[in-house]
């Protein structure tokens, strides 16, 4: 029994689902968790979380932004600020957000916290598009 729970402040995306494998965008780089993993506690960055339901060969993809994950012997608990399944993503909006974030980052008078905010937006938009299978090769401008 290896259970996944994925919770955000606004909804419960995955509740007590039995899984075979979950890949998360951990603090530094991807992390692949299989049943029997050592107990672990980590923060998550913005990116794609993929999980495979028990017995299924296909990965489900969810975009998460800021999160926290706890692995214990019975399963995985993920808390995230934002979690969107692929079906929920609005492609046009994501592209607009990407453009807006890039435009914002070009501004030379940017304050530090604004910079962080725009970067965060950029990452989120990129993750959303990536989840849809569109890759952004434009790169960031700094």
């Amino acid at each position: 029994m290896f259970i996944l729970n994925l919770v955000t402040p606004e909804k419960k995306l995955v509740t007590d689902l039995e899984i075979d494998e979950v890949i998360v965008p951990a603090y530094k780089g991807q992390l692949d968790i299989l049943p029997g993993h050592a107990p672990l506690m980590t923060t998550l960055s913005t990116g794609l979380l993929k999980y495979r339901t028990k017995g299924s060969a296909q990965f489900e993809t969810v975009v998460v932004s800021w999160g926290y994950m706890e692995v214990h012997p019975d399963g995985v608990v993920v808390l995230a600020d934002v979690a969107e399944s692929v079906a929920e993503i609005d492609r046009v909006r994501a592209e607009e957000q990407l453009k807006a974030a890039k435009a914002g980052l070009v501004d030379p008078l940017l304050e530090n916290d604004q910079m962080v905010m725009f970067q965060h937006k950029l990452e989120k938009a990129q993750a959303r598009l990536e989840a849809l299978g569109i890759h952004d090769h434009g790169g960031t401008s700094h």
Partner: protein
Amino acid sequence: MPNLKDIRNRIQTTKNTQQITRAMKMVSAAKLRRAQLNIQNLRPFANQILSVIADIATTQRVEHPLLNAHPEDQKVLLVVLTSDRGLAGGFNNNINRFAYKFFQDNRSKYQQLDFLFVGRKGADFFRARNIAGKETILNLAREISFGMAEGVASRLMAEFAEGGYDSVFLVYNEFKSAISQEVVCERLLPVDISKARVSSDSKNGFAADLIFEPEPALIIDDMLKKHFAVQVYRAMCESVAAEHGARMAAMENATKNAGEMIRGMTLTYNKLRQASITTELIEITSGAEALKG
């Protein structure tokens, strides 16, 4: 003596008002349902975060400025959470009166007591009493979201850090049921984890060889900020639910009162109408009698 036309007009106006209050009641009822759902949805997230913070703080002995359990209240920031709109019965008034009393009672106790207002009604109330807030946060989006609450939370956090406050209190309406709210005053900062500690022992099976990535001190910093934002969000959800509940009750009453007024006025109207018919009949018959001679 009012004439028939006046009364007819007044009845019509009251009917229009009644229609509006009834519509407002319906709208509030629908919004209340959604707001209640928000509170429910938040609960698992909030509980999990608090229990993790308590676990890390107790097992790893992490110190954090936001975790000071016994603050000496010298400089205090009071956050007053009201709504932007009125017509919600005693909703805003209860908050304002509570906050004002708090101010009068504690003014001499603390070295410094500042206000920060979220929502127009609180800011207006205190402006009329010549008390200016450190900051006023208005025009919250119609639909509250976690992202928005996080924005407010980070501003509060900045005030806490820069203003050198010892404590941040929040006054808001807690949602009890659709018809009752309760004004509560809560300490937001520093974070109090004593409640969570009891409930969370060993439920997560905290192993001694737990891997932390990054180190616990960094995780707890992140988690505390999140926890704070969650608290703000929760208070907002409660407040919004309470607001809609209060407005629903107020509008229900208004609709009932309007109904009573309409009944009373209709009665007067009919009496007057009958009286005028009777007078006319008397005039006609006495005229006929006179002609008969």
